[in-house]
């Protein structure tokens, strides 16, 4: 029970200016909406956000960008956000673009205590510049490092008071590899249940990776690209 906090405000109370933060989600899918809202309310500035995407205008990390709270984005794709583009081109915002698989593995490596590994992604491109290159079994690879942070903020579907998490559908994305990658991992969940209610075989993220957990007040779950089929 000592992991359970009251709400997003309490969960992020010690996040300060210039913190580095992992934020789970892919696009707007599976993002920690409540913690993002709390960070916006708290107004901390100079954040470095490690997140696959940068949200859209008015939602997700887009809220923090709009309030100029973000100093730097570390992402694989940031194309959905015009405010992002404006700040980048004006030099207000730094951005590090990282291949998506490398980003996921660097987060997983941070959680798993692996300081560096080799991947072929980006070999021969500008991503490889300044990086160690090595051949294994006739193929070229570059060395990538773990990507740690002060805080990891993730979102799950169900969670228990011991911090165990279950994700729903494609919301697992970066939430799972970021669990435990930061010094302190905060999980917000749609439903918080007492420890013992989740099937131990079905837990996606064991509680050991989670330091704080709370049930989010509200999940808007905005859809970025609503695409539908016609009924035959």
């Amino acid at each position, binding site marked *: 029970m000592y992991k359970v906090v009251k709400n997003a405000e309490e969960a992020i109370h010690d996040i300060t200016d210039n913190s580095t933060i992992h934020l789970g989600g*892919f*696009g*707007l*899918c*599976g993002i920690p909406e409540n913690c993002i809202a709390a960070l916006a309310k708290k107004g901390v500035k100079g954040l470095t956000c490690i997140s*696959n995407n940068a949200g859209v205008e008015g939602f997700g990390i887009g809220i923090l960008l709009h309030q100029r709270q973000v100093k730097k984005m570390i*992402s*694989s*794709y*940031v*194309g*959905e956000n015009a405010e992002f*583009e404006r700040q*980048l*081109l004006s030099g207000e915002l730094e951005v590090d*673009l990282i*291949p*998506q*698989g*490398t*980003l*996921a*593995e660097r*987060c*997983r490596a941070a959680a798993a205590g692996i300081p560096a590994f080799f*991947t*072929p*992604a*980006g*070999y*021969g*491109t*500008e*991503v490889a510049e300044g990086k160690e290159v090595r051949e294994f079994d006739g193929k*070229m690879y570059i060395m990538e490092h773990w990507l740690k942070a002060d805080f990891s903020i993730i979102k799950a*579907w169900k969670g228990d008071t011991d911090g165990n998490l279950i*994700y*729903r*559908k*494609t*919301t*697992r*994305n*970066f*939430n*799972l*590899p970021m669990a435990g990658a930061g010094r302190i991992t905060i999980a917000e969940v749609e439903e918080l249940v007492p420890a013992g209610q989740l099937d131990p075989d079905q837990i*996606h993220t064991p509680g050991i990776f989670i330091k704080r957990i709370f049930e989010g007040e509200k999940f808007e*779950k*905005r*859809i*970025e*690209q*609503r*695409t*539908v*089929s*016609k*009924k035959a």
Partner: protein
Amino acid sequence: MLDKDGIAKRIAQELKNGYYVNLGIGIPTLVANHIPEGISVTFQSENGMLGMGPFPFEGEEDADLINAGKQTVTVMPGGSYFDSATSFAMIRGEHVDLTILGAMEVSETGDIANWKIPGKMVKGMGGAMDLVASAKHIIVAMQHVNKAGESKLLPKCTLPLTGLHCVKRIVTELAVIDITPNGFKLIERAPGVSVDDIKKATEGKLIVEGEIPEMHLYL
């Protein structure tokens, strides 16, 4: 000459039963609409799904179920969800049989450029660099020339690269072309397109050996 659907249709003929396939955004997405009869393939979406199905019916969209293009989708029987590290373990570990993606430029040595135009806003490479670096088989689906009328099949890419020596086959509105150790090799002509048309549109070295068949597009 093929339209976009025609390109997708021709590429769909490359699918083999049991293939795991990753489709990029744009023309590649259309391939899913033209899977030949009797062929069963599984689509991988790198945001964390195997067995990606069609768009949901209106009212059945689920914000928790999207593809790598952030579109609402559905899941097929036998599908599964997983995290991004596992997703790219599949890709990097060469478990995906075929990757189909678009490109701005392809070189005669199989280099590909499809993520960045100097001077323009850079949106990021997403999963493209991981995909091209590790795919067992890559087919590029693209227009043969760009909007300025310049060939996209070049001796050497001029744009920042996405990956080196990785493309195996290109399907355009004009032709099917393979990357060989000696350069681009013409395999098939699109209906009504001559070898000369293709030569003119191809800036890189184009190998033309013997009679070049016109492609068959099964419906």
